[in-house]
């Protein structure tokens, strides 16, 4: 149990997909201009990565290593299609807002990376924990970036005004350039945190 918890929790901070592994920065730049978009994308990726990890783990003993990458991609694409259709059916507005990036989840580095380095070598339960942890880490990172950009870039949080209406928001934060700056500083912050934790453990 303790081992499963450590597999799960390492994805949240110590091996956070965006802040520490620096994988899948493209969605972190593209769909984090509002918290809603960021959260939807985070949850979608969490779903895809968990289900995919379990699938890959289940079939890991039957797949010839030579063809493993095509197999992974087919598996991911199938799960992404499911997520896409669900979003399209129940949340058409969010589906529209995410646009092409939803389909692009198929090629997010973090999903393939977890299938390759973890799920193909571990059993289903461990893979599930890893996928969940990575997914939660990804979603949390996305929401943090989205929150900073939305609060300071348009003065709102989840669409509600949190800063006075007279707040003259710099558009920069809504633009991709602002996302680069925000992510840069957040990665720096995460680095400090991770270093401190590692030092206190050692």
């Amino acid at each position, binding site marked *: 149990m303790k081992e499963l918890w450590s597999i799960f929790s390492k994805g949240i901070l110590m091996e956070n997909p965006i802040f520490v592994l620096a994988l899948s920065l493209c969605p972190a730049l593209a769909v984090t201009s509002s918290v809603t978009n960021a959260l939807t994308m985070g949850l979608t990726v969490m779903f895809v990565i968990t289900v995919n990890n379990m699938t890959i783990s289940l079939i890991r003993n039957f797949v010839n290593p030579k063809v493993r990458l095509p197999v992974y991609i087919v598996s991911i694409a199938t799960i992404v299609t499911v997520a896409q259709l669900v979003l399209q059916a129940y949340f058409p507005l969010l589906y529209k807002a995410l646009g092409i990036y939803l389909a692009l989840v198929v090629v997010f580095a973090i999903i393939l990376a977890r299938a390759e380095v973890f799920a193909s070598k571990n059993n289903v339960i461990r893979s599930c924990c890893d996928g969940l942890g990575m997914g939660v880490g990804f979603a949390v990172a996305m929401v943090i970036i989205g929150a900073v950009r939305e609060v300071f870039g348009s003065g709102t949080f989840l669409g509600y005004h949190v800063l006075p209406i007279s707040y*003259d928001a*710099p*558009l*920069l*934060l809504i*633009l991709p*350039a602002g996302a680069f*700056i925000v992510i*840069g*500083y957040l990665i720096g912050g995460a680095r400090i945190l991770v270093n401190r934790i590692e030092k206190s453990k050692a």
Partner: protein
Amino acid sequence: MAVNEESLKMNLLTVSTSPHITSSESIPKIMWSVNAALAPAVIFAAWHFGMPAIITMLVGVVTAVATEYIIQVIRKKEVTINDGSAVLTGLLLAMCLPPSLPWYMTAFGSFLAIAVAKHSMGGLGHNIFNPAHIARAAMMASWPVAMTTWTQMTTSVDVVTSATPLNILKQQGYAKLIETFGDASNMYQAMFLGLRNGSIGETSAVLLILGGIFLIYKGYIKWEMPVLMIGTVGLLTWIFGPSGLFTGDPLFHMLAGGLMIGAFFMATDMVTIPITRKGKIIFAVGAGVLTVLIRLKGGYPEGVCYAILLMNCVTPLIDRFIVPKKFGARR
């Protein structure tokens, strides 16, 4: 081992690594000289644009110095707010802004210049981009309307217009531009003296040139850079004129916009330009070409800021390819 330190100090020669001959130049000396070179243009701007410009410049400088102090305390570095570099960044930024800009925008830009463009890159001497221009570009992206709103001037009676000459040229054409000033010689005179609308510190070509000549005389900047950058702009705008080849108005383009302040004070920033003479020449000509490209073909009326930032990008590349010949080496 018990070594008597006192006797060591007294008897031994000072041993140090080369270089052994150092000049008397120091960062504070150079930075304050550049500030002094800007002073005439600053005073002119204060007279020309009045109170709003003075406030903008004050906010710019004070925010820059305060940010520098706070960050150096946080970074546990020596506090060097007296060396004039933060003052210079804040002043240069304010001089590239419209005079009536709300104060918090100036403060935001000034903070960004020091915190993001300078200290996040490692502090003085480590920044890739010109901090003042980074801040201006960020402000341009953040508040596009406020950054291109030029209010009516009050003190000067010679020119009554609420747009910069380059804006008029872009939107209404050359004929309208001449009409605004009366005739061509009137226009050149107004633009040379600075009696026109524009950013706070960019208007007076003659005072900026004077400041630049002072810096060239002191040896802090090389004459090739401003001359080549302004010359490239003049040549290209003359060749690619509005009605066919060789019909342009080079004099207008050389005097307009932020070219003078850009060429003399931004494109000569020691940190962000190539080290070698050849590299500097490439930088200056490249910045000139990009400026003309943005002015004539781009969506913005003025491109000096972006041209210099783009050339800052390729500075490491230029430095890598232009390697000076080693002393004593044969070709």
